[in-house]
């Protein structure tokens, strides 16, 4: 049986689909890669949903938040996307980091006070410190991510002679595992520090309020049966049964305002 193009896509892994569709879309490896790589199925705003419930389709919308505010090189943004997706992949349990908007969440966080360590002690002198003394790099988080993304790509090229976004999932996982163990050489910071940041930022993007750009349509919360912001559980706290509650986001505060 000869598969149609559509059938072929269905049978391919999602990551491979992303990769191939990118190549199909003009074989771009440069500036156009992101738009091609990540199909409209994951990036667009899609349906506008009720802020109260996350359900109840109310019409078409454009998600204006889904634009980079920190990254200006979209090839590098694509590396971040691919890495986040390996940490929190799309699978039988539900959407992964990319569908949930996690890379945009991280991008926006890097552009803001967290990325610039605004409320942290960043005065010198700097010394490496022991493993018990915590963050001691002079780099700010956005610089740690810059270095980390360079390290991912460099490792990918040296191990597989292929760009990170082009690798098989297992190969990508291998690089992340090396990062996590601190094996990969980085400038000004160790790779395990970067990996811990990347992992925690990915989980934050999955589960933080959708106001921050991730946890799209509260899908992260729905997977975990977390109802987000609720005014009161006074009538339910004693319940012997588990209670599934439609989640509600911070957006609903302003509805009552």
């Amino acid at each position: 049986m000869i598969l149609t193009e559509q059938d072929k896509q269905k049978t391919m892994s999602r990551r491979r689909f992303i990769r191939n569709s990118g190549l199909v879309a003009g074989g771009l490896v440069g500036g156009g890669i992101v738009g091609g790589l990540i199909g409209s199925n994951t990036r667009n705003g899609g349906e506008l949903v009720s802020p109260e419930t996350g359900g109840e389709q109310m019409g078409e919308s454009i998600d204006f938040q889904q634009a980079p505010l920190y990254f200006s090189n979209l090839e590098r943004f694509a590396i971040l996307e691919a890495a986040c997706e390996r940490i929190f992949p799309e699978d039988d349990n539900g959407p992964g980091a990319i569908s949930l908007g996690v890379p945009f969440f991280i991008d926006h966080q890097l552009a803001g006070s967290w990325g610039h360590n605004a409320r942290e002690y960043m005065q010198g002198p700097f010394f490496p410190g022991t493993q018990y003394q915590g963050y001691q790099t002079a780099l700010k988080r956005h610089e740690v991510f810059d270095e980390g993304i360079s390290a991912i790509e460099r490792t990918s090229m040296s191990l597989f002679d292929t760009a990170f976004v082009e690798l098989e999932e297992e190969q990508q996982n291998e690089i992340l595992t090396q990062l996590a163990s601190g094996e990969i050489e980085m400038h000004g910071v160790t790779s395990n520090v970067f990996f811990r940041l990347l992992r925690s930022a990915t989980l934050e993007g999955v589960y933080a309020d959708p106001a921050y750009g991730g946890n799209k349509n509260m899908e992260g919360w729905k997977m975990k049966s977390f109802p987000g912001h609720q005014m009161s559980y006074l009538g339910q706290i004693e319940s012997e049964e588990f209670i599934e509650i439609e989640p509600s986001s911070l957006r609903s505060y302003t509805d009552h305002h």
Partner: protein
Amino acid sequence: MATTLPKKDAIIVGMGWTGSIIAAELAKEGIEVIGLERGKGRSLKDYYVVHDELRYGIRYELMQDLSKETVTFRHDDDERALPMRQMGSFLLGEGSGGAGVHWNGQTFRFLPYDFEIRSKTIEKYGQEKVDELGLSIQDWGITYEELEPYFYEFEKASGISGEENPLGGPRSQEYPNPPMKDTPITLKFKDATDQLGYNPYHVPSANMSQTYENQYGATLAACQYCGFCERFGCEYGAKGDPTVAVIPFAKETGNFELRNFANVVEILQEDGKAVGVRFIDTKTQEEFIQPADIVVVTGYVMTNTRLLLNSNLGKPYNPSTGEGVIGKNYCYQILPGVTGFFEEDQFNIFMGAGALGACIDDFNGDNFDHVDLDFIHGGNIAITQTGARPIASNNVPPGTPTWGSEFKAQSIKYYTKSISCVAQGASMPVKSNYLDLDPTYKDAYGYPLLRMTYNFSDQDRNLHSYIGEKIEEILLEMGATEVSERSNLENYDIVPYQTTHNTGGVIMGDDPNTSAVNNYSQMWDHDNVFVVGASSFPHNSGYNPTGTVGALAYRAVEGMLRYLKDGGSLV
């Protein structure tokens, strides 16, 4: 050139629980009080839109701005201390209400044993026990019986909902409010500990079990169990919080002025007496001198100790000779904990309140025999249902990877099917753990940071291991199908959050050679300076410290009023 302001009767440095209580009680008696608070002002309206885990729970919105000031840390004298650049192990508060805004509200009384720990330990186990473990424990110079009425004053102010601790010190009055509700989780714990022959009771809570009016005329609403308590302010005014429960009253007296953005950098002294303080307006960077008859220092442990050291008040502790007192007996807490995974159950784990829980004291204080044990004291073992939020709650069974598809599956599955049980293990002082000034690092105003030299001791490791076993037994009795691996306590790590129950540095006692303040929190060396807070604990018990901090604040007020009338040392 600093501007000198008109003299006041009393200056209070820091407007958390202790500062607020002292302000209210002094102002009520007609004393002219100024409260100097380096952070911003807050009230109930500022706690709107608070159900945001990232902003408050993970990014620490309500906590201290470390870019201006932090502490440095090392394990021992041979290491180079480095700044705690990010918040981690403990969360320092800032602003009106201090940590009293974002605390959970678990409010215990320390045990009678705690206040006489040295005498009682030696009496029962002999001097050898103390020597073998290398403990610098000392009596507090006050007994539980003497403190009992002050505990109750604080329980009224903060509206504690609770039931009598079957193994605690005697109470003269019931708690002002009945205990909070039971849930399947608290009931499971109570049944299991009952089966094991222990004495469970509800955690005493500053989350109101009903609408309540305190002695300051503040009405606190009933808790809604919304699950956003620790690290958050309460938008309902249902948590005992100084900005709701005490500060409004202090202001109504007409004798209390609260000045925010006022960072006190030095206590000024002449001839052995404090004459006022120097502070910096953090918005304009302008310097002021505020004169007063008494100076009351009510910051956190770190702030109190550092302010005295930077002001040359009291004799700094020297770890090699054991002499001196300021910075001595810094303690923390030891937190053995086990997570139980429940195949058959699913819990409404996202509902809760900061102090909703059940606990036992069968392995706390000297409630169990230590003759054959290689440690003293113990800890309160508790199950709390504080509201598990999804970024921070990712319990996975042992052996699960920390990322990827399997992690995703297990962390989602067990979010509602796991419960953690933790003990607050008491922390005993040892000679080598202390606070002093850092020789290298400075705050935003050029003053030396506080340096913490701290590591766990064998006493801590032995306590951790013993109590950990008991916790595991409880979780298995509760029906856990699997439990997390119990790790051994090794070295103190400043990165992962553990507890904000730091104590010591300006300790109380009955001897000026071994303590900084007497039992009215009055400095031995400077009788018009009172240093109030957990900084005065000679050791840390197996409980949340705030109940005892509050009791000491009410005790201190009594001393201040006497001092303002008669002068001199109060003991």
